[in-house]
């Protein structure tokens, strides 16, 4: 894992799970697979805390374990899965567009909790939906279950590998760790549950805004009494399926941009028909019959013509377009012209660049070197003589898309890490002010709950002066900008990662 990726993982883990989990997680990413005691020893944390942190990480599918010989259990972190945390808002929003609020909340709960049983998910979502509905109305479990089943059918949620049910003929001691297995066929099989019930509205005395301080937390044990019918069957969000959807979206919009709306509709239909039948990383979709397009190649004549969408080519051209636009925005449109020229000609000499691009020699030279130094381009040496004398060698400029994409991806990781750090810095700088405004809000809310007068509320609000309000506004604007940038850089990351993955599979 590159340093930039490790840094980004560390920032993400810290924001979402706290410093202890971050320390353990980063240690595992850096050093690979390790047993429990070694982790505790190397990070200098107590065994209990390491256990807690590992439980959390395993629950969220960020760390997996394996039993090695002599009963030692080793834990391994999945760095790429940690990086997916950046994409959570996108997953949730996509589900909202496809399955409306119910689906959105289901996926959100699954992502927030790592894995859950179906009954737990249905209950939580129903409760949440009931909160937002008007008084007196409640959300029925059945509707939530239906949406859940639809999500499972389209493979957006999948079952987690489960503990194999062993018959108790095994007399020896239980293994130190269960080996979880999953049957391919069962992955999307929804258990037959008859979930009857309605969402419950949270009593308002549970809210924090109420007057009394809560000295003792009520214990969360009420639900453990009833046996859960689908105990042990956990579900998680199927990120690969989401990625497939994003990829299809990107291709469809690319086609719509280059050609017209109808062509994009055709491509969309083709992709949709093959959604479930193709695995997420196949380079070609299953052959179907339709009309001809750029990314579509003909793969046979049966049934009036079988056509295939060349996914690899589509991703490659998307990645190339990304590179081109980066060059354009960083170095100017002349540079972009040179870049496209080199892409087109594959290998080209400096002299020829000046001629073809119609740019004066000095400028062309300058730009080529700038791009070379930033690793968008590379040089290919072709010696004329066996002694490789520099004066008698051809130097050809070329663009290697794969390595340029990798370089850009690395830069993206660094960018996001910078964005997150800056956001944390801004928040920390204004921490005092933020806390003050939170306190004022809390006081106002509590006063409103106990019925205070307008004048008193006004007085409390004036505790925050106008320049302070201004500062808060600016802070909010900046933080929003930084957050939005993170989300959008993540889109580029997704494109580049898909392209790199697809290309590596082919080789």
């Amino acid at each position, binding site marked *: 894992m590159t340093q930039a990726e490790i840094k980004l993982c560390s920032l993400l883990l810290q*924001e*979402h*799970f*706290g*410093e*202890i989990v971050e320390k353990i997680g980063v240690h595992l990413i850096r050093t690979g697979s390790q047993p429990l005691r070694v982790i505790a020893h190397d990070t200098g944390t*107590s065994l*209990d*805390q390491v*256990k*807690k*942190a*590992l*439980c*959390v990480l*395993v*629950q969220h599918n960020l760390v997996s*374990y394996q039993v090695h010989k002599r009963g030692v259990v080793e834990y391994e972190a999945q760095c790429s899965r940690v990086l997916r945390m950046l994409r*959570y*808002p996108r997953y*949730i*929003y996509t589900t909202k*567009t496809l399955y409306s609020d119910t689906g959105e909340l289901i996926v959100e709960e699954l992502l*927030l*909790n*790592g894995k859950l049983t179906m009954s737990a998910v249905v209950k939580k979502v129903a409760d949440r939906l009931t909160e937002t509905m008007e008084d007196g109305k409640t959300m029925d479990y059945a509707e939530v279950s239906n949406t859940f089943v639809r999500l499972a059918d389209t493979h957006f949620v999948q079952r987690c590998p*489960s*503990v194999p049910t062993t018959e108790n003929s095994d007399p020896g001691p239980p293994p130190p*760790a*269960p080996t979880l297995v999953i049957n391919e066929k069962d992955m999307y099989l929804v258990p037959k549950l008859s979930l009857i019930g309605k969402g419950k509205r949270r009593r308002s005395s*549970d809210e*924090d805004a109420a007057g009394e*301080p*809560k000295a003792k*937390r009520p*214990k*969360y*044990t009420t639900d*453990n009494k009833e046996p859960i019918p689908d105990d*042990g069957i*956990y579900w998680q969000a199927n990120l690969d399926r989401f990625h497939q959807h994003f990829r299809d979206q990107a291709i469809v919009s690319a086609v719509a941009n280059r050609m017209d709306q109808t062509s994009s509709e055709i491509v969309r239909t083709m992709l949709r028909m093959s959604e479930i039948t193709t695995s997420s990383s196949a380079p070609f979709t299953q052959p179907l019959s339709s009309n001809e397009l750029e990314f579509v190649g003909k793969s046979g004549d049966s049934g009036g013509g079988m056509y295939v969408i060349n996914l690899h080519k589509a991703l490659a051209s998307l990645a190339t377009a990304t590179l081109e636009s980066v060059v354009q*925005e*960083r*170095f100017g449109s002349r540079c972009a012209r040179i870049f496209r020229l080199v892409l087109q000609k594959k290998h080209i000499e*400096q002299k020829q660049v000046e001629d073809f691009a119609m740019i004066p020699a000095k400028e062309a*030279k300058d730009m080529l070197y700038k791009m070379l130094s930033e690793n968008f381009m590379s040089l290919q040496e072709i010696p004329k003589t066996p002694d490789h*004398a*520099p*004066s008698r060698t051809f130097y050809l400029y070329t663009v290697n898309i794969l390595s340029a994409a990798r370089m850009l991806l690395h830069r993206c990781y660094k960018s996001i890490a910078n964005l997150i750090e800056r956001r944390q810095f801004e928040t920390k700088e204004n921490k005092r002010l933020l806390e003050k405004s939170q*306190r004022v809000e*809390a*006081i106002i809310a*509590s006063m409103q709950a106990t019925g205070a007068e307008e004048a008193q509320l006004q007085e409390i609000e004036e505790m925050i002066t106008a320049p302070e309000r201004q500062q808060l506004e600016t802070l909010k604007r900046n*933080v929003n*900008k930084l*957050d*939005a*940038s993170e*989300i*959008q850089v993540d889109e580029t990351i997704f494109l580049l990662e898909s392209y790199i993955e697809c290309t590596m599979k082919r080789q």
Partner: protein
Amino acid sequence: MAGNKGRGRAAYTFNIEAVGFSKGEKLPDVVLKPPPLFPDTDYKPVPLKTGEGEEYMLALKQELRETMKRMPYFIETPEERQDIERYSKRYMKVYKEEWIPDWRRLPREMMPRNKCKKAGPKPKKAKDAGKGTPLTNTEDVLKKMEELEKRGDGEKSDEENEEKEGSKEKSKEGDDDDDDDAAEQEEYDEEEQEEENDYINSYFEDGDDFGADSDDNMDE
């Protein structure tokens, strides 16, 4: 290929014209320091995309961040003391649910190790066990006594027994979180007792209340 480095001017090994500099022209200065941290860019970045989708995702992101902090998965580091006790702190206490992982799916070593296994993943049972204590306590105490005897520490006094009972009751009333503390406390207990055995047990003549009340004596 030892070039004539010492004599006269350095000669280039390649045709300087090929790289684009004409002969005799001043080459650009050698840069002796790392590039600036925030370099000026000639081109300003493209403005961000805005739209319904983007705004919704932004709101989602910020909401998720806040929600994650309140989930039981967020393990907090113990905070330093606030300088002033604030009135509004009472209203901002966050209600965190307990989370108990499914132990069947995790390796056995993950479970918090307690001397009294009943205070493990079932807090309710622990409460009941806590009430009918004496038997379990004596068993564990006996176990401890054997252990300590093996280490050759001599006899245990009633005071130490009471200390252990006191701390055990407290530990049994706790949740999972407290169990970890109890484990730590019990570890402390052992250390404390070993150290205290250096002195005659009647050295502290505070009577039976010593040690049974507060656990603060455990911390050094």
